[in-house]
């Protein structure tokens, strides 16, 4: 296990870094094992982060139930990845640009997407993807790797505009095998553009274990191929994820170029709720083994010890979240049915002759 001090953590943010041992601040029991790495967070911020993580776990549980009831569509479970997802998004700024993958809905919501729209996205309704200008994000990307090359472009745009912002994008362990994964980090590196590229290594790409993706010992070391810093972090440790992301942001905004961060984490349950069953391929007991490393348990213990968290506080968050979800589903239910004529109208700024014909055809049909 890594025994860094803060100074050494700085040394990881170097294009010549070859130390890919895992950065950890809290151990599995919530004990502070590297106090020297503690990020500059107020008590209030830590409580907010815990609140976000509990919110996300409840969102996961309710999304699963709503999917089973047929009230949600596509859903990729997030339980287990709360530290990786919520601590990283907490470390970035509102004006930073988020390019999420399909499992990264919690980050999108925390970045400003109304929850009802996240539900509409799940159901397959365009209203879920109608983002206000102020929301610096794209909808969840389905083509694994595409968000990486696009992030390189956004990063270069931010740099050219002299904005003090970064782009943040996420993929999984399987995604690190894609060509676009490499091209994305290499382009961002080549242009020294401010991007934070996350690999959320949850061990499995559907049924394919991480070991089948590559013989590379870590995924963070893939950064070496782009000549950029690569850092592996305990993805079940919210403080470690927050500390490393914060530092990556400072590094990128200062004009040093991109950073690749591997968060070692786990997804409890299936790949998606579209029929995947992990008991077919995962070794027995692996889910229980990772349940012991649960980021929520670990952070709960840490904060309770400090007197910042209590069962009552957690229950209040759970209650509030359930109410929020109920209201969001209700709002999503009220969304009018989609019209083909509207789709045709949003193909181009000006409809072409053939599209105009089809608009008329569908409008006639829709008015019946």
């Amino acid at each position, binding site marked *: 296990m890594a025994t860094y001090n803060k100074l050494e953590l700085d040394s990881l943010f170097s294009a010549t870094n070859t130390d890919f041992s895992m950065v950890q601040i809290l151990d599995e029991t919530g004990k502070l094992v590297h106090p020297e790495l503690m990020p500059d967070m107020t008590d209030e911020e830590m409580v907010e982060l815990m609140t976000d993580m509990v919110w996300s776990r409840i969102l996961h549980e309710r999304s699963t139930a709503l999917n089973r009831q047929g009230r949600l569509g596509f859903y990729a479970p997030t339980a287990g990845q709360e530290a990786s997802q919520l601590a990283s998004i907490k470390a970035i700024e509102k004006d930073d*640009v988020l390019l999420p993958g399909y499992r990264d809905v919690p980050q999108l919501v925390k970045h400003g997407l109304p929850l009802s729209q996240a539900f509409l996205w799940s159901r397959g309704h*365009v*209203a879920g*993807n*109608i*983002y*206000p*200008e102020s929301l610096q994000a*794209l*909808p969840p990307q389905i*083509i694994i790797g*595409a968000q*990486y*090359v*696009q*992030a*390189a*472009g*956004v*990063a*270069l*745009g*931010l740099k*050219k*505009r002299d904005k003090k912002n970064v*782009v943040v994008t996420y993929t999984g362990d399987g995604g690190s095998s894609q*060509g*676009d994964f490499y*091209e*994305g980090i*290499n*382009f961002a590196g*080549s242009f020294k553009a401010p991007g934070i590229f996350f690999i959320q290594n949850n061990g499995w790409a559907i049924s394919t274990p991480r070991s089948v993706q590559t013989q590379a010992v870590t995924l963070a070391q893939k950064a070496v191929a782009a000549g950029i810093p690569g850092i592996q972090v305990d993805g079940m440790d919210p403080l470690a994820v927050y500390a490393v992301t914060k530092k990556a942001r400072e590094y990128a905004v200062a004009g040093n170029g991109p950073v690749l961060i591997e968060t070692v984490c786990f997804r409890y349950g299936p790949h998606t709720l579209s029929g995947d069953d992990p008991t077919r391929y995962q070794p027995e007991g692996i889910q229980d083994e990772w349940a012991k490393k649960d980021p929520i348990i670990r952070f709960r213990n840490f904060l309770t010890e400090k007197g910042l968290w209590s069962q009552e506080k957690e229950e209040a968050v759970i209650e509030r979240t359930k109410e929020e979800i109920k209201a969001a589903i209700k709002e999503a239910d009220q969304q009018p049915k989609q019209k083909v004529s*509207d*789709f045709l*109208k*949003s*193909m*181009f*700024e000006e409809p*072409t*002759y*053939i*599209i105009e014909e089809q608009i008329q055809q569908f409008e006639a049909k829709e008015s019946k």
Partner: protein
Amino acid sequence: MAQMTLIQAITDALACELERDENVIMFGEDVGKNGGVFRATQGLQEQFGVDRVFDTPLAESGIGGLAIGLALEGYRPVPEIQFLGFVFEVMDSVVGQAARTRYRMGGTRNLPIVFRSPFGGGVHTPELHSDNLEGLIAQSPGIKVVIPSNPYDAKGLLISAIRDNDPVIFLEHMKLYRSFREEVPEEAYTVPLGKAAITREGTDVSVITYGAMVREAVKAAEKLEKEGISVEVVDLRTVSPLDIETIVATVQKTGRVVVVQEAQRQAGVGAMVMSEISERAILHLEAPIGRVAAPDTVFPFGQAENDWLPNAKDIEDKVREVYNF
């Protein structure tokens, strides 16, 4: 006015737009200091700076992603894919991503990108440089496919493409780059996207075509005129979306049609033109629609190009067949 080759007209259009709008930026493999492998971007980096015209790593998919990301930050990217045969590397960015963005975000975001790319046979390139792959893109909703056949159109269409607020793929036929000169205005002007041109008026048979086949069709028409067959040549200029009005009008006028493309019979957009005519103007037809296209093989080895590529003679024969039906 100045006498320009098609490639000079393209460079001129790029310079006009770099001058007009500071958000226009160009990038690709060797487009900067080198001025492009065909000199299409010659002198532009020198004139407008490395921030506006720059080289990229050698990775088409990365170039596509770069264009999308830059467009999201308010730029009007004009990336180059060095040869259209390499478009397979970037198909996801072009049709899986850029072409879908306005739709998938309900019209709240748009990507004003022009992907420029040379293609086309007759210049004995190595493998996968000359393939006519316009049909692949033309089948994808959300992106326009533009193919100029002469210097004047090339400049006006490219300026229109860059000013269009949706993605466009702009395909430049290599054989046309320097094969002839034409009067081209020095100032900026536009040629509308989605509008065909009547290159040559005629009354007996319409030849509907695009790209390098326009010149072949005109050659054939000149020969056939001596035989007393009057051929109208329609240059589609934009192959997606098709200019239905011009296509239908020429069919109504002549009643006989030959659709000509350099692409293989199973590729290109010829079949699309034929089906639109069948649906919209069949009662005006005096004969079945003729078709001239390349054989359904892989694009030929360099030395076999002349036997493989459709030419004026093939067009003449097909026009006579349709005329005498």
